């Protein structure tokens, strides 16, 4: 291969510049991909189940309807669990809490992480190092370990779960936010605002933030996936504020012993959590691919 050949190969990508895409259209564009659509379908389906499930549940979730671990029969479509409660009813009641906790903690973690990332990146001084080294230390421990530590020290209250997930999500988000913001900080429109004395906070929210929304949306779906997994794992370990309340994670733990003869008690929540995380993952992947495609073209333009 001669150098000329290589040069030409490099020019292949240099098509006509495509206009940069505003983030409102990023989601719309991502939805043109099948993976994003399938992901959105999964998530939508489970959100509907979680929200409207309690209203259509045939039984009260804590009502003992027949013998424990009964296989599917007339008044229990998916059989009963280890205490003789209706599996379907407990499943329909058990999703909302998990989803709300995951969504709230991820959203707060994102906000905190983006704020730390932008402040660190834009500070251009020692603060950057201090903040990012602190984040590195946090990231040295697996998320589940820090969350378990917090829950076992303080107790399995809802606020402890949320706070510990927020604090473990933020460092990972901060890294990505800082990385995405650094090239934007060097662009002249930021310098233009600086010559006019625009305040730092306005530069971060008005100039930097809109330009990193693409990667942050990808990060959001990834973090949501992890949060769902972590919260479900905590419930599986029995670390919830009310161990008797219906909860997908608790259900798996409680019914796994009957897996060979009455699998539905564990299987139903397993499928639900799998589809939910798969769905958020697929959406994130779709956005990432769309953003990457757009960015590649933009860089060459």
């Amino acid at each position: 291969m001669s150098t000329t050949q290589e040069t030409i190969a490099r020019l292949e990508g240099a098509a006509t510049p495509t206009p940069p895409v505003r983030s409102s259209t990023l989601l719309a564009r991502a939805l043109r991909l099948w993976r994003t659509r399938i992901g959105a379908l999964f998530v939508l389906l489970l959100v509907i189940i979680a929200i409207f499930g309690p209203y259509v549940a045939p039984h009260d979730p804590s009502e003992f309807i027949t013998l424990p671990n009964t296989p599917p029969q007339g008044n229990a479509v998916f059989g009963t669990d280890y205490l003789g409660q209706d599996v379907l009813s407990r499943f329909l009641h058990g999703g909302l809490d998990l989803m709300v906790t995951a969504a709230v903690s991820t959203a707060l973690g994102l906000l905190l992480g983006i704020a730390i990332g932008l402040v660190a990146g834009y500070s251009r001084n020692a603060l950057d190092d201090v903040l990012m080294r602190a984040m590195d230390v946090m990231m040295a421990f697996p998320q589940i370990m820090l969350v378990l530590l917090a829950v076992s020290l303080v107790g399995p209250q809802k606020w402890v779960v949320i706070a510990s997930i927020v604090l473990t999500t933020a460092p990972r988000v901060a890294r990505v936010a800082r990385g995405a913001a650094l090239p934007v900080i060097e662009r002249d429109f930021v310098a233009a605002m600086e010559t006019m004395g625009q305040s730092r906070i306005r530069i971060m929210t008005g100039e930097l933030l809109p330009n990193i929304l693409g990667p942050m949306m990808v990060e959001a779906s990834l973090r949501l996936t992890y949060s769902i997994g972590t919260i479900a794992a905590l419930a599986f370990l029995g670390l919830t504020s009310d161990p008797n309340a219906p909860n997908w994670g608790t259900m798996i733990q409680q019914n796994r012993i009957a897996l060979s003869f009455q699998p539905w008690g564990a299987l139903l929540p397993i499928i639900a959590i799998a589809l939910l995380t798969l769905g958020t993952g697929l959406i994130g992947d779709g956005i990432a691919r769309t953003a990457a495609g757009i960015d590649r073209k933009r860089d060459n333009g």
Partner: protein
Amino acid sequence: MKTQQQTSEAVTTAAVRVKDLSISTTTGIQVVSDVSFDIAAGEVLGVVGESGSGKTTVGLALLGHTRSGLRITGGSVLVGGEDILDLQDGDLRRKRGSVISYVPQDPASSLNPALRIGVQLREVLEAHGRGNRRENEKRIAEMMREVALPDDPKYLARYPHELSGGQQQRIGLAMAFANRPRLIVLDEPTTGLDVTTQATVLSTVRDLAAAHGVAALYVSHDLAVVAALARRVAVMYAGRIVEVGPAENLFKSSAHPYTRKLVAAIPRLSGGRALLGIPGHAPSPGQRPPGCSFAPRCPMHLAACDEEVPSLVPVGEGHSARCIRAHEVVKQLQVSVADRVDAENPDANEAVLTLRDVVARYGKVEVLHSINLTLGKRECLAIVGESGSGKTTTARSIAGLHHDWSGSVLLGDQELETAARSRSRESRRQIQYIFQNPYGSLNPRKTVGESVGQPLSIFGIAKGVEADHRVAEMLEQVSLSASYSRRYPDQLSGGERQRVAIARALISSPSVLICDEVTSALDVSVQAAIVDLLGKLQHEIGVSMVFVTHNLPLVRSIAQKVAVLADGNILEYGDTAQVLTSPQQSYTRQLIANTPSLETTTRASGLNIG
């Protein structure tokens, strides 16, 4: 006379013959139509055109290559009697780098940063079956000498990042010439290089092509560079060659109105005339009119122009133009316009901005040593210099974007803090900055209206309806319509973006405008229009300007005073006309001599014009 003989010889002994080359998108939109030309062995043919004219597409087609989304739909490229466009992939690959080679615009990206340059040079030889190691060593040494670089093993063991831009580009040239090709395509290889470096690269190209009988196609947007290098020039517009002929005739007595306009847009060292931009912009592929593509912008437009695409009309020896009125156009005098720059300025003695002993550092390195400058009211002061001279650092220090400097900068009689953030709001309003790259200086997520209106809210000048009204007014002033305020930057051309940046800088009525290489990313005709606009606004609004540029002839068209900067020192400082016509320093003289311009080349060749 000698050239004309050579030109007619060239036609008979053409090494490269391109005939009726047509390229369109895969969706069927014509991008390049009916391009035909010959290049003789040892001859350099210049192809000039503005962005989007199809010049690079033609250059790549000569290697049998098209960018993705394009395909060659017709015509032939004969190199040594063989049609490149008929070759199969394998054969084509063997020809590339050996029979035809390519020198790209950006040398840094065409060299592999992970390999030593010696290794890369050897690769080029080995890729085409020259396996003998000792012979290759000798060839590499020879190649290095040809491009005037050291050939010792220590130098060859360097990595590309250890070389300067000019050295990298000469390595690119050495590679391109390594296998003694018949045709070499150079795509703006000197864009981004200093004039001095550019001059050496250009003479290397010319000498090598002549010495080895290589036909060269030199693609460029810079007419002056092409005029300095090529005997024959083809001008492209909207995918067609609109005029082709010997360089002297083409530029002195252009036969196509577009060429004439383009020549008028080029700044000259010799006279401080106002520059003329070309109104409107070139039609993009798919929107080209059925007749002459230039007709909608042409001052000599006739009804017949819209009927069919004119064919090339011969107007002289080897000189023809795609214009039905070519014979009339060629007889016209080249337009000249009265000076605007040297107009009387009674306010110039009143200092608006003063720099006293400004010393700037990057870390421990001192990049500016004691700079003293004064900017008078309504005056335009140009700061010129090559890259690394400290001109941009000077500008950024004045604006408070570069913080690490000492000395004093006075706005009127008030001393300024080093950093913009620690200055008063009023002094920040008074000094406005326009950046080099209009693609980077506007936030892609903000509409034009939001960007232009931002200073109004930052400085608390106006808000709401009043602000909208001011934005609309400002957009009109920079020759954009108020309807632009709802658009996003990606919907604008480079020239339009720069107008938006100018509007944003002027809306707060500053007293000092700092322009940092504001036209270097733009086409010549757009550059002319922007410089014209700046000159006009300077007079209307009475703003003083600091105009930073590497383009000496441009200085003549806009600035009353000029400071020549080299290595962080001011070498020469005075009235523009005086400095440029009788420079006192040898550095300035050298800089002027190395600047390619239309006059110097036509003067030097001393030919009579047909």
